[in-house]
Structures are given as C-alpha cells and as structure tokens.
C-alpha cells in the first residue's frame, strides 16, 4: 500500500472512531457553572455536564469561541439562565452549532428563569438610555438558594422527560439535593440573621435576589446605570449616601474592577467583600460549597473583614 493510501485509510478509521457516540449518557451543556453544578447534583452519574462560561467570568460578556460551539453541537440539552443575560453570545453558538435538539423552543433547550419569580422587572417603559436594563427582570437569581431549588426542580423534570429510564434516579437525587440545600439554608439564615436591614453598597445590580433572601438593603450601586462604569460625581454621591446610612460593606463579584470600590471602601470606611460569581464546577466544587463560600465572606463582611 502506498504511503498516501495508508494515510487516507488511517484518517478514515480515525474519523469513524471519533464519530461514534461516546456513551449513552445525556450530554448537558449549561451557560453558567452554577447551572452545571445544579444539573450535576440532580443528574448524577447519568449526565455528562459542561459549562460554557467560567465562574470567574462576567456572564454578560462571554466570547463565543468555536470550541464552545463544538460543546453545543454535541449537547442533548442546553440550559441557560434566560432574561437576555446570554443574549450577547449564546445565539451565535446556538445558530452555529448545527444541532436542532438545542434550538430555542426544542425540548433540548431550557431557560432556568421560567422557574423563578423574577425581581426588578421594569414597571415602566425601558430604553437603553437607562443602561443595560434587563427588560424581563433581574437575571442574577442563583445567589438565592430558594430560586436554585426551583431551578433544580425544573431541570429534574426536563431530565426525566428526556431520559425516562433514569427518571427515578433524577427524582431521588433531587430529594437528596433539596434536603441538603434546605438544611444548609437554615444554617446560613441563622448565621446571617444579623444582615437583616443592613445597608450595603453593591457594584452592579446583581444583588437583588441575595438581598431579598437575606434581608439586607442595597442602598446604592457604584455603577451610575447598569453597565456604565463609575464616574466621580456618582461615586461622590454613593460615598455620601454610604456614610449617611452607615453602609456595612461593599459587595461585588470579583470580575468587576476594584479600584473605585477599594477607594470608596476606605473612605466610608467599610470592608470590601469580593466573591466569585459562580461555582468552580470544573474544579469539583458543588453549588452548596460555592454558597458556603459566599456566606462565609458575607459573615466576615458583617464583622468588618473584607476580602
């Protein structure tokens, strides 16, 4: 056999092998690692889960890298947050993936927002002069374990309908996850009871659900309008408000810049509490561990310790 023929044959074999379905598992791709962690918790060994975004990434601005399109191409189920959080990048991946299973409206596409009672839904007409306002409501609901539980239920139902032979296992996993999360939630609520009514300054409008759950009061945002970086006049105002209301700490995700927040924190003075937005799913962290980390940081913030 000539070397060329040998090469062609080798390639053909390689292609054949690679195009074989890897396993019978349900392949789930989620936009955010929190969704991945929740899906893994209820899916267990029957699902293979990948998250498109990393926990340290701003979920509004993810690059639609072709390697992500490849993940979406091979997915049986795509789970997104919705409420236009991923509007800047997910449609490019969905439309380019050549996978009809995960197109909007198909059984293989699930938006988590439908299971949650959304907050901050604009009651008046919004346009972009108000900044990056999400017209459907605030999409940052996974900081609230109660919302996460609703989402976990929704995901379980979808997994069960797509993979009926393992439906029992999914429901059992959900029960286990619910019990663990509810137990942890009671503990967190107890530890952070002191946060009720506490004035807090945040960077972006991401704290609505966390505040709604723990009862703290977000008195100001460092961004003058959602998505618009801080400017001196606004920061001066925030500082004034924070001093008047005696803000306990500044709370922000670690993907936002810290120059302004550090300055304001030192001026109030109050600690700056930085936290990682998502679960380090790839590193093996669970959703509970991620929330535990966030609660620890809030607890420290209450005691006057920043991060």
């Amino acid at each position, binding site marked *: 056999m000539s070397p060329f023929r040998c090469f062609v044959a080798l390639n053909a074999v390689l292609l054949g092998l690679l195009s074989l379905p890897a396993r019978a598992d349900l392949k789930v791709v989620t936009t955010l690692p929190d969704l991945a962690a929740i899906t893994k918790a209820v899916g267990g060994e029957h699902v293979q889960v990948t998250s498109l975004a*990393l926990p340290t990434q701003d979920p509004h601005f993810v690059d639609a890298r072709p*390697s992500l399109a490849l993940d979406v191409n091979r997915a049986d189920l795509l789970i997104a947050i919705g409420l236009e959080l991923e509007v*800047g990048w*997910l449609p490019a991946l969905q439309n380019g993936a050549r996978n009809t299973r995960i197109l909007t409206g198909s059984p293989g596409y699930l938006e988590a927002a439908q299971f949650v009672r959304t907050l901050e839904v604009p009651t008046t007409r919004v346009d972009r002069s108000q900044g990056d306002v999400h017209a459907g409501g605030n999409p940052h609901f996974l900081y609230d374990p109660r919302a996460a539980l609703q989402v976990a239920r929704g995901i379980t139902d979808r997994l069960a309908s797509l993979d009926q032979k393992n439906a029992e296992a999914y429901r059992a996993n959900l029960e286990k996850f619910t019990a663990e999360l509810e137990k942890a939630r009671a503990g967190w609520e107890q530890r952070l009871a002191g946060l009720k009514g506490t004035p807090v300054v945040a960077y972006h409008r991401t704290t609505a659900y966390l505040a709604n759950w723990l009862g703290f009061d977000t008195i100001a945002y460092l961004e003058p309008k959602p998505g618009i970086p801080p*400017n001196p006049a606004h920061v001066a105002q925030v500082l004034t408000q924070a001093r008047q209301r005696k803000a306990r700490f500044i709370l922000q995700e670690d993907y936002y810049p810290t120059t302004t927040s550090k300055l304001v924190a030192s001026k109030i003075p109050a600690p700056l509490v930085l936290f990682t937005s998502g679960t380090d799913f790839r590193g093996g962290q669970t959703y509970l561990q991620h929330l535990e980390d966030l609660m620890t940081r809030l607890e420290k913030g209450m005691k006057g310790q920043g991060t």
Partner: protein
Amino acid sequence: MSPTSCRLAGLAVCLSFCLSPLTPASAQTPREDTDTPAQEPEPAPDPGLSAEDLKDIEEALGKDAAAAAEAGTAPATTPPASSNGVTLSPTNIDFHGLNLAFILDVAAAGFTSKEPLQTGGHDPTTNGFNLQQLELSINTAVDPYFRFDGNIVFSQFGVEIEEAYATTSNLPGNLQVRAGQFLTRFGRINPTHPHSWEFVDQPFAIGRVFGGEGNRGLGVEGSWLTPLPWYVEVLGSVTDASGESTARSFLGADLGGVTSPFDFQFTGLLKQFFPLSDDLSLLWGLSAADGPNPTGYRNRTDVFGTDVYLKYRPLKGNSFTTVALQAELLYRRRQVPQDVLSDLNGYAQLSWRFDQRWAVAGRYELGTPAYGQNGSVADDPLDPEWTGNRQRLSANVTFWPTEFSRLRLQGATDIASWRERPDYSVFLALEVVMGAHGAHSF
C-alpha cells in the same frame, strides 16, 4: 428620499455629532448634573465629604464631575448630551423573534492627498464629513427549517441589498446550507461588516482583490462541521462571478451571463480553532477562490488566502484586557493574454483593549505590484498605476461609551511607491447601534 434631503439628513447628523462633546468625561458631566437632584433629595456636597475625599475620587476616576459634586448643581455650560441628535430610537425592536437593528457609521475625515487611495466601499473618502453607511440588519427564524439574515445598506444615494440569505437549521450530519446573496466566507474580514472591524476602513487587500464591497454574490454555500475532537469546519460555495465592486478579479462589471458551469466563482475554506488555554485562542483559516476573468476566453483568476486570529483574554481577575493579533495574506494569480499575473496583498493588526471602554490598535498593510511569469512587474489591467509596493500604517484609539456606541480616532500614512510622497489621513468615526444587538461571532 431625494439626494438633497439625504444630504441634509447626513449633514444634520454630522453637525450634531460635531457639536456634541467629543470627550467622554465632559459628555458625562451634564447627565450627572440633571440626574443629581432627582435621585437624591439632598444636594451632593454633604458635610461628610471633605475636599480631600473629592480630590481622591478625582485622582482615581478623572476630573470630570468633581466640580459638579462640589457645586451641587453645576451650570450647564456644555449642551446636554441627551440632545446628541444621533440617539435614534434606542428601544429593542423585536417583532415576534424578528430581530431588527440599525447601525449608523459616520466619520469626519482629513486627507493630505486630493485623491486618497481608499478602496473600501464604506471607507471615508473625502475631506469633511462622510456617511459611511446606515445598515439595517435583520435576522429571524423562518420556520423549523430555515433562518433568514439580511443586511440592507442605505448610503447617501441609494439602498443596496448587501446580504440576504436563508440558512438551513435542520440538516443532519452537521451540514448547513446557505442560499441567497451573501459575502463569501473567504478569510476573516471579508464576511464581516464594519461594526465588527477594528479600524475605520477596510484593509486595501480586500478592496484591491475583491472590490470595495468585499467578495459577495448570489449563490449557494454548503458547510460541514467535522466530528473531529477540535473545531474543524469545511466549506464550499458557488456564486456569481460578476459585480464591479464585489468580484473585480473575476468577471467584474462584465455581464457575460452564465453559459457554462465554469462561469461561476468557486470558493473553499478550511477553518480550525485551537483553544490553547482558557485565555488564549487561535483561529486559523485557509481559503481559496477560483473564477473566470474577462481578459479572454477561459482565462481564470485564483485567489489563495490564509488568516490567523490569536486572541488573549484573561478570564480570571477583574481585567478587561484583550489582546488580539489578526493577519491575513491573499495571493492572487490571474491569467491574462500571453501572461499570468501574480500579486500578494495582506495586513497584520494588533489591538489591545486595556479598559472597559478603551482600546488601541495598529495595522500594517502591504500590496505588491502584479508580476508577470518572467518575474518582472507587469501591466495590471485592474490597477494600471500600481507599479510598485504600497504600504499603509494605521493606528487608532477607540472609546466605547457602551457596547452600543463607539468613537474612534484613526491616523494613517499611505506609502504608495508610485506617488511622489506619502499620503496622510485622519478619521474620527462614530458608530451607534440601535435595536437588537446581535450576538458576536468569534
């Protein structure tokens, strides 16, 4: 609309653009002032804020509205930014999944040369104000089997269907077919629109080889995403080979009509993506196009291209840093009576986004004259003046108030060896995006 009213409208836009504050800092000032009383019942200068505090804020964030905070309600010395004139309708336009967006590009330009060598159809070309384009982009799902994309461009003297095509969404085997009028996916920059460019103008390589509007045509395209473990896409298209500003190396303005299958342009592409790490991405493409040219019976043109895009964007930490290197090389061979002409055109550009709102970029371009088979410079029927190398260096700085608006200041020096001295140019361009902001491809 008559040309006069078009001109008037263009003038109004340019004028308001000029009158509006050009620096971001001053643009924010009045807005803050007007907001202040509404948001807070008390005036901003609280006894709690010392002069030192304000000074620190100024140092950290710039000086823009320090005075505003100090004076509580600053006098409106500059016109309010909201009267900017170019903010059309900023609401989302989405009728049952039909995504509509308008993109306006205007620029003020200055050239040292009376006849600038700009080759792009959307480039600023004259001293003074230029309407680069008003683009209407539409996309929607047609039914469970097709998607539709359209790009309709309004220029000062007409309307043009830049792209209008249907894409299949339900083919098996990772296949996708497009049909209609589309920009061929040759290389990296050709299939894109000014909104996603990092420079005000198009690289001259595209304008010289394909035409001011880039290579596009009516036709059909098939593509296949291979099942390999990394991203490999293979694509081929058949398009019309005519069009003065879209297929100038091919039939160009010659309206010969199709008499055999060889009268079409054939384009092929192999695109590969390598995620080198979470932060580092490499996209590499190989392209080829072949089609008839009008210089004689069965004379053909071949264009071979390669493009690389290397992007570094750290996903950890609070940095907005993005560094991207993009380069493209086009090698063209044309059969002409008694000779085969070949030339090489290309560009390399490096951009660095160092802040949420700011980026700088530099670009180098090179175009050789056409060489004959004997290796000497030959007469080029398309660009007769192009008797030596042309090089162009461009640099720019970009400011994005939000992802829906962009100001870009660009300077360039164009060294065409057949001209006595280098040409210099400067552009100040504004882009605003209204309506549904489509997702960006990588």
